């Protein structure tokens, strides 16, 4: 009976298929509001006047290219899955994972550059701008780690051929989130480039 209905796995799969995308979209809205809060904090705190501009580290620029490329690569995988070409899909997910890790690495290099140039996250020497720069990029990485975890899950499921041309919701959810992270980074990059750096 009904007790069985709600416990049966078919019903649960159905729920997942139906709801995971809308859940993700609304979660993205709240992440947008979070970063909106952070970036408007930058704007409000700069209303005061002068500040020392911070040269944007080259690492951040490189990472921008990397994340844009990774978005395309990850997307090709979906096309491959729709054609049930699992070999190609696997390559695309692995490549995205590598690009994602390189993004983290280039960001780290960016922070090293900042630190070497005398811009600190905290402490007496730090300015509001330098703190914001570290914090906002760091928060983006924190969200990206979630994306990397989902990439690993997707990779396992691709290897196990869990997706097919009819059912690739899991892949799509991860892909949407990855695109979002890319878009978010591009926004943050240009925002920081023109407000702080």
């Amino acid at each position, binding site marked *: 009976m009904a007790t069985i209905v709600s416990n049966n796995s078919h019903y649960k799969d159905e729920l997942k298929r139906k*709801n995971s995308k*809308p*859940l993700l979209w609304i979660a993205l809205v*709240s992440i947008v*509001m979070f970063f909106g809060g952070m970036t408007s904090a930058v704007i409000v705190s700069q209303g005061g006047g002068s500040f020392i501009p911070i040269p944007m580290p080259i690492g951040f620029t490189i990472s921008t290219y990397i994340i844009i490329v990774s978005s395309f690569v990850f997307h090709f995988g979906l096309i491959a899955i729709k054609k049930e070409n699992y070999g190609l899909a696997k390559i695309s997910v692995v490549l995205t994972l590598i690009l994602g890790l390189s993004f983290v690495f280039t960001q780290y290099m960016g922070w090293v550059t900042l630190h070497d140039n005398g811009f600190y996250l905290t402490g007496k020497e730090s*300015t*509001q701008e330098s703190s914001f720069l570290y*914090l906002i990029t760091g928060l983006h990485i924190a969200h990206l780690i979630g994306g990397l975890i989902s990439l690993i899950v997707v990779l396992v499921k691709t290897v196990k051929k869990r997706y097919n041309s009819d059912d690739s919701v899991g892949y799509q959810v991860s892909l949407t989130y990855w695109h979002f992270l890319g878009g978010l980074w591009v926004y943050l990059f240009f925002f920081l480039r023109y407000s702080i750096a």
Partner: protein
Amino acid sequence: MSTHHTKDFLFTYIFSTDHKMISKQFLITGFLMGFVGLIMSTLFRLQLGWPGESFEVVELLMGSWQEDGVMAPDKYLSLVTMHGTIMVFFLLTAGLSGTFSNLLIPLQIGARDMASGFMNMLSYWFFFISSVIMLCSLFVEGGAASAGWTIYPPLSALPQAIPGSGAGMTLWLIAMSIFIVSSLIGSLNYIVTVLNMRTKGMSMTRLPLTIWAFFLTAILGVLSFPVLLSAALLLTFDRSFGTSFFLSDIYIGGQVLDHTGGSPILFEHLFWFLGHPEVYIVLLPALGITSEVISTMTRKPIFGYRAMIGSMMAISFLSFIVWGHHMFLTGMNPFLGSVFTFTTLLIAIPSAVKVFNYLTTLWKGNIKFTPATLFSIGLVSTFITGGVTGLVLGNSALDINVHDTYFVIGHFHIVMGLSAIFGMFAGVYHWFPKLFGRMINNKLGSLHFWITIVSSYGVFFPMHFLGLAGVPRRYYTFSEFPMFENMVDINELISVFAIAAMIGQLVFFFNFVYSAFRGPKAPMNPWKSNTLEWTTPVEHFHGNWYGDIPTVHRWPYDYSKVDANGEFVYGEDFIPQTTPLGDNEKDGGEH
């Protein structure tokens, strides 16, 4: 069966993914937190009513927070802060929205459960952990957070400024961050469930107003809570890691701090961008519940269903562009102040529409005064009484002299505190049969209502006079000012009412516990209501309906619908949403 007994118990009562159980968990945790908040308010009312006198109960409950039964000034501020935090967030956000969104969304839209039962469970457990941490913060060195529930830095950032800003504040921030995560996960789920899981025939314009209210509340939460999270994060960095987002040019305890360049005003902006929508996160569910209760109990359709939805939408939208009215006196650009005055006073229009619609719903009704009805009528009354003084506070020129006085305390406790808690009580009384399968005692219910409304008006109404006499809020005592000497008896009166209000709530707690276990068994549809939750069996099981989920054929407010001869259309004064439309019948309140 018995071999899996412990496992069953664990998954039925503790780690349940069933929305009805999660709803009960939210209700009980919320009420327990609310009770703590209530006791706190009684304790500081003792101090305000009889400053400097010693009380055995203060000595008993507050340990080293007092000297000879008299509480210390900074502990008074701790109590005020924790009272505000607990009441606003833990009782009226999580307790109210968490309980009724969880209970009613699936039941009233015709779904077997939430979009994601697992996330729903997660939402509750985050809330629970957050509550525990918040309570733990009472016992750390330096005491609980004491910078006011609005935690403005630098006071909240510097333990040198007040002891509560040490470990107590750290725990406050941790607890609130977890709370925000809980609230976000919950809201995500509510929104998607309403959008995606409605049964056949349940269009958006056939949703009960409760669901509309919960839906809009969840949207407000998703949009505003992340901003508070960013404020909390920046504050944490300032406090613990030496950044200067909010701090600048500070000389305290005989030394100049390293922080330069920050501005506390930034924090106020971020805080109130959440803080004002938060008022409506608290209020809208209560208004939704009231709409449903009033319509059912007057046996009349709610007047102006679409206008009600429209006004709730207008209120939700406006709530995002009025936050500046909390900051008129921060030296903000006067033009900006004018803009915020304008947008703030605009909110009066949809609010007035709602009030008049409630009044018209009562007009020529056939009202049954269950405790739920009484509390709903109480809500309309407090919404009016507290709402009208908003015209004073929202007007920047007038705000100057009553800002941060008891006038504000009176205003928001009536319009937001009382209205929301009355709505919550109305909901508990009305859906008690659905929650516990038993009926709650009516006589004790109305006794509870009468004590509550009389004593709560007795507490908050005189505060307007205090405010107009210039009495500031968050003062430990007024004995230092000759000009406030003649306020002593007013404060005493308020405190007497506050104690009465607390005792009144004991009646409720007794009734609640007694009826949940020993009340008479509930029938399926005790209030002869139209909505879908009353088509489910009284006993709870995961999935809500045996067999298929019913199809919906009409809006939820066909009460006392008569045909051309003046007879009830189906012989009864209510037509459930599952009844198909007759041949010549129109939907949505048309004849």
